[in-house]
Structures are given as C-alpha cells and as structure tokens.
C-alpha cells in the first residue's frame, strides 16, 4: 500500500516536471483573401518518435443535429473509437467510402449505433444515405498532437514535449495537398511558439439541402 502511494507520488512529480517543460504551439490559419479559416486541422509530428508517445486515445463523438454532422470536422488520433449519436428525432444511415475507413451504420435513431474504431490515418468523409446534403469529416491523425481552428482561425496544441516538429495543415476545401503546408518548427525555447499559415481554399460545393419545386430527388 505504501509502495503504491510512493509510486503514484513519483509519477505525479515526473508528470508535473514533464508538463513544466512542455510547450504550446499557437497557430493561425488564413485563406488567400486573408480571412480566418475555421475547421482547419493543425498537425504536429514529432521528429523524435519518443515525443509522440501518448496514452490510450479518448472516445470521440460525431453527433447528428438538425440533419447535419456536428462537428463538421473532427480530428482524432489513430486508433480512436468514435460514437455517432443521433440527436435528431428521425433516423440516419451514416456511411463512409473513404479508404482510411469504409463503414456503414444501418438506419438508427438515438444513441444505439455501435462505435467505430478508426485504425488507419487519413481523411474519412462521412455521409448519410437518407439526407444527401449531410457531409462531415473525420481526420485520423498519425500524431497525438493536433488541434482544430475555431471561428477566429486559431488553434493551440498544448503539452508538446520540447523538440523539433513537422507541422502541417488540412482543410476540407484546401486547394493543394496538405503536404505542401509542411514546416519544421522548434518547440521549447519559449513556452509558446506561434506560427501563421496561409492556405488556398477552393469554393465549397455541397449537395443542396432544400429542393425547389423542380428538383425531386428528396424525399
């Protein structure tokens, strides 16, 4: 019993010490017109693989609210499990054709759909077979260090062990491959490292939600 307490205390001290030396990366993403870009995923890949070690990935969720996926973009660490609760009072049939994860959840309501494990890195495009306009993205990251930009176009990755990182950006409407955004950034000299990206976005075209009188594909 005493030994356990000592081990826990040592672990806590070591953890705190590591955190004390960890840093934060603050990223701003703008588009070609200088506008803040929301829903961009920022990924930091440690040059030293020892810095990439992390505990078991947490359980994530992508909800369905008002016949839309919420959130629109969900970054997760590879190996994570994601639930797909349905907060609408109608049924949805969620699927993906993406090579990173092909799956289909048969028609369901409520929260009883089985969770899905995302075990391969890459972009997973979500759709609903009933409501064609519903689209969402799960970015399965190969690194545990990632964040998503908010309405101000900013995101912060905290608890980064000091060292060198390759940092890149991904967005659903990005005009170029995400590898073209790669940069090497040293983290740890200062408590907070900051960087700004400008990415080219193409016009977003999605399947229309409301049918006019002349377009009969829904329902």
């Amino acid at each position: 019993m005493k030994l356990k307490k000592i081990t826990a205390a040592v672990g806590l001290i070591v953890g705190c010490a590591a955190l004390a030396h960890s840093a934060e990366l603050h990223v701003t993403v703008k588009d070609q017109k200088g506008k803040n870009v929301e829903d961009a995923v920022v990924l930091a890949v440690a040059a030293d693989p020892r810095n990439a070690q992390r505990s078991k990935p947490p359980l994530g969720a992508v909800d369905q609210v008002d016949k839309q996926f919420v959130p629109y973009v969900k970054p997760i660490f590879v190996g994570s499990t994601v639930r797909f609760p349905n907060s609408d009072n109608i049924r949805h049939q969620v699927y993906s054709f993406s090579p990173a994860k092909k799956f289909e959840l048969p028609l369901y309501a409520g929260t009883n759909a089985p969770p899905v494990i995302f075990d391969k890195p890459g972009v997973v495009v979500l759709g609903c077979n009933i409501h064609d306009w519903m689209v969402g993205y799960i970015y399965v990251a190969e690194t545990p260090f990632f964040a998503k930009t908010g309405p101000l176009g900013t995101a912060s990755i905290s608890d980064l062990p000091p060292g060198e990182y390759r940092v890149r950006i991904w967005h659903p409407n990005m005009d170029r491959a995400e590898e073209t955004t790669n940069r090497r950034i040293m983290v740890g000299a200062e408590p907070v490292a900051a960087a700004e990206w400008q990415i080219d976005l193409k016009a977003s075209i999605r399947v229309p939600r409301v049918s006019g009188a002349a377009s009969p594909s829904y329902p």
Partner: protein
Amino acid sequence: MPILHNLAMRPIRAWLPALVFCAAIHTARGDWILSTSAALNHDNNLGNAQNAASVVADSRAQANGSVLQQILWDDGLSLSAGGDLSGELYDHFSALNNASIEGSLSLKKKWGLGAFAPWIRAGIAVGRVEYDDRYRDATLYSASLEAGQRLDERWDLWAKYAFDSRRAAPAESDLYGVPSDVFSQRGQSFKVGVQYSSSERMRLTLGSLVRHGDVISTTQPSAGIFAYSKAVAPDPTFGPDAYAYRLVGTTFGARLGLEYSLTTHSLIGLGFQRLDTHARGGINYGDSMPELTWNYQF
C-alpha cells in the same frame, strides 16, 4: 373570405380519410418531412386563348404546405405517404381563386449508398380542387414514374413520366347536344430536368416538358375552334361571351430557374416558364410565366 371557406369547409370529406391514412402510416414508425412553399407569378395568357382579342393576363399568389411520413428500409427502399394543402389567389380574376388538398403515396428505390446513387420512384396521388367559380371544381388523379441521378456535387439530373386526370362535373350549357364536361381532362407528360450548382448557395435549373392530352382554351365563340372541340361550355369567369373549349393538343414547355439558398432551410428563386400548345385544327397558343418562389424545408 371565400378561399378560406374553401380551404376549411368544403374539402372536409377529403380530410378525414387523409388523416386516417396518415395515422395508419405513423404506426409503422416513419420519419416526418414538413415543407412549405410560396410563389408569385404572372400568367400572360390565363385562358389559353389563340385569338389576341381574347388573351387576358393576371398575377397570382400561391401557397403550399406539405407533410410526408417516410418509412425507410436499409436496402435503399422508402415509402412516402402524405398530403399537400395548396391555395391560389388571383389579382383580378378572383373567381379563379382556389384551394386544393392532395394525398400521395410513393415508393422510392435508391441503388447503392451515397448522394450519387441513382434512384427511381413510382407514385400515385388523389386530390380535390375547389374554385370560387365552382364550375371548375374537380377531383384530381395522377400516377408518375421518376428517375434521377446526381452526377456530382454540381450536377443533378432527373426525368419524370406522369399520367394526369381531372374529373369535373359537366358545366351548365346552352349548347344542346354538345358535351359540356369541358373541365375534365386527361393527359400524359414527360419532363426532364437538370440542375447545376454554381456555388454552395446558387443553383440554375433547366427543365423541359412535353404533354399530350386534353387542353382547355377559353375564348370568344368561334366556329373554327368549335369544330375541333371535344366539349364546350360557357366560361363566365372570363366574361359573358366567353366559352371554354376542350381540345386535344400537345404542349411543349421549358422552364429556367435560378435559386439562392437564404439559409440551410430555405431558398428563394426566380423562374421563367414558357409553354406552347398545338391543338387540333391549327389552334395554337402560347403562355409565358415569370415567377418568384420561396421554399422552406423543416
């Protein structure tokens, strides 16, 4: 207002079976789909007259509410049952103000998963329309077969074949020996449509139509049109000397529409429709209709 009376009272017999039908469908565990729409348009040949002296134009406001109960299966099959309630108000020809109720049942099959899977739908509908002038009142029947496919996020294509029938009581007529059920019509139509999304909010729709069957032309009395008519009756809504003639004709139509999404639930649109009808005996007439539309889907 007469139209409100129409809406609430006269079709009451049609309401009851519709409600019972919806209740029965609801017990089968379906999803509700509610939508509403409105339009303002101008018809430059309201009576479908050939003779320029008989051509009259008017503007009208239209409103529609629709409720559907959709039962879904995992293999892409869905059954929809529901009803529409519609009304039209005319600016000058108030005798044409009308209210209608319609019940519909359709079965849709989608081949495969996703937004780009092709689909086909067969449907039937029964309705009742009642006008302020009363003698146009009719029971409506239709059956249709539709198919479509979205090619990508920008392009959507569809086609529809429909049979339509409209049964009205024979009108009072002073022409003895001449059929007077002029407002009863039957026809078959084929429509194709294509929609192009130029941006996330803006869409352009082009549709074309061919319809063959009964058409009604209201004009001043004429021996030429009389000889080719299947039925004739006075049509006092268009004036004391106006007669409605039921002819067999083919209508060619085209509609161009531009729609803009105001919100994720609603859109407004501008449209222009042109119809040209060629009836037996060289009775030809045209009809143009610009319109402003609004749709809301819950």
